[in-house]
């Protein structure tokens, strides 16, 4: 990773207007004449910088503004306000030089020709991106080898499985060696093995080619495995920017103690130590402040007949859902 900025985003805002319609025929007719226009802010002023070669994950629930942000960064959407550059260019100016160096993969939208074999689509991309014969041959060889889809190149795209198709989409997006790749839900709907394969491939590709990658997902595993840095987006704002494993630092340094006992314990005795999350007489989960963890553990072990004792971090999922709620 270098310190050269690949993507710069400042106070980016995108709002959409839409119409509301109440249920029923009467309101349908009413809507013909007078429609109440509403405005939804999908992205509410986000700022971040991404360095060249970085691989960054956008994590967030449905409708958080992840896809909208990617669409602005690829030039598909004009922002309502704010400013962004990708490789020093303003995406929505859509200069050829910009288009030649980026790529976007949308998990739910295909860029391949449905009725033709994948290699026809790829061959078209060779011409669209003006790649010379040798370079094309070499890239295709390499990518199909890595993703293990060499035999499938001649199969009609509509006959490919979802996972196979996704691999082809990724090849189509990488064939011109873009410097920035935006991936919107690349693993959506795939089985665990295909997900893993694609994750491994992207990670490898990023390390080999120093390509800057942004990917969105609502699978935490995607982000956790691939990205050092995560931006959590919720309701159009960035709720967190950093390493995913450190997300719990945001929440007042708590730890979790998991306990099992040899004999039944009184609930009240345990509640003194901290927030009791689960309890059934023999087993308990206790949320304790990090600073008091030593004394707590000592007291608990002294006073109760503990059979098993474990100190854990608060799970990352929990931190994320807390962030979502807070947003």
């Amino acid at each position, binding site marked *: 990773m270098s310190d050269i900025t690949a993507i710069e985003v400042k106070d980016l805002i995108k709002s959409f207007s839409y119409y509301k319609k109440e249920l029923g025929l009467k309101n349908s007719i009413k809507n013909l004449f007078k429609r109440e226009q509403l405005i939804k802010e999908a992205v509410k002023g986000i700022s971040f910088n991404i360095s060249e070669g970085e691989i960054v994950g956008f994590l967030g629930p449905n409708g958080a503004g992840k896809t909208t942000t990617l669409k602005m960064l690829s030039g598909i959407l004009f922002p309502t306000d704010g400013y962004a550059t990708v490789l020093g260019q303003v995406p929505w100016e859509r200069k050829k030089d910009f*288009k030649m160096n980026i790529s976007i993969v949308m998990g739910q*939208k295909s860029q391949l020709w449905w009725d033709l074999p994948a290699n026809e689509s790829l061959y078209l991309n060779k011409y669209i991106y003006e790649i010379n014969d040798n370079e094309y041959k070499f890239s295709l060889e390499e990518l199909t080898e890595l993703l293990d889809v060499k035999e499938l190149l001649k199969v009609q795209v509509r006959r490919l499985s979802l996972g196979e198709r996704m691999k082809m989409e990724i090849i189509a997006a990488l064939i011109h060696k873009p410097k920035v790749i935006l991936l919107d839900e690349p693993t959506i709907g795939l089985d665990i093995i295909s997900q893993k394969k694609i994750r491994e491939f992207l990670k490898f590709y990023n390390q080999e080619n120093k390509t800057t990658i942004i990917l969105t997902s609502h699978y935490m595993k995607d982000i956790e495995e691939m990205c050092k840095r995560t931006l959590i987006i919720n309701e159009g704002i960035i709720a967190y920017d950093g390493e995913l494993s450190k997300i719990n630092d945001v929440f007042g340094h708590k730890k979790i103690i998991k306990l099992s006992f040899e004999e039944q314990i009184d609930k009240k005795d345990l509640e003194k130590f901290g927030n009791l999350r689960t309890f059934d007489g023999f087993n308990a989960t206790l949320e304790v402040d990090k600073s008091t963890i030593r004394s707590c553990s000592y007291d608990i072990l002294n006073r109760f007949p503990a059979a098993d004792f474990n100190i854990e971090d608060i799970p990352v999922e929990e931190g994320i859902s807390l962030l979502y709620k807070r947003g």
Partner: protein
Amino acid sequence: MSIQSVNWVKKYTRVFILGVQSSMEYRADFLLTIFSAFVPIVIQYFLWSAIFNNSSEAKVYGYTFTQMITYSILSGIFSKLLATGFEWEVASDIKSGGLNKFIVQPIGYFLYRISNFLGGKFINSIVMMFITLSTLVVLKYYLRNQIEIERIFFLLVILFLALLLNFLIFFCVSTLAFWMIEIWQVFTILGIVINVASGGIFPLDIFGKKFLRVIEFLPFKYTIYFPINVISGKLNYNDLSKGILIQLFWVVFLFILSNYLWKKGMKKYVAVGG
């Protein structure tokens, strides 16, 4: 030529070739397209037979029976030759975000569409031209119709311009999808109206003088009615060359219009988000 323009030509040639390949991918569909040109011709044959049998005069709307049948046959073939269909694809690109890839990639949508359309028409047109030619020979030498077969070269030029014209007409129509959500019915209705106004079903002069005067100012009749009148000798060389100039005018005009409409639509598309 500079490297850039060579690359540009290669790019759209490739799209053209893909169009050719796509059109051959479904062979049964391909044959059906050709076959389907003859269904309306058969219907028209029975329709006009009934009309002429019940008429006391030898001419109906100024046409003899054989002239009318000649018109029906040629209009059936030319309608199929010029038929579009890409407007549905454009609409679905607009509706489902398929346009996104054209925004992101260094390729122009209009040029992509026209290259793909012409590619898709390529084989079909060659087959259709053979059918047209043999039909003309049969009409002229066996059925003794008036056919100006030496005008075949002009016919080829005129039909090519008609193909461009029809593409541009329907490209303009397809941009409606930017503003209308339920576009499918509109396309179907406009498709029929445009076909009738082009002379794709009946010769336009049977609708009367007033109708003709209006249609004079529209591009539609230059797609089907005009080429048929050229080959059937209804027009002299003066009208023929005038007609070609008007065709050229409409091609330029509709090219400008379609680009304007497309730009307007894209502005909306980009604001709303694909």
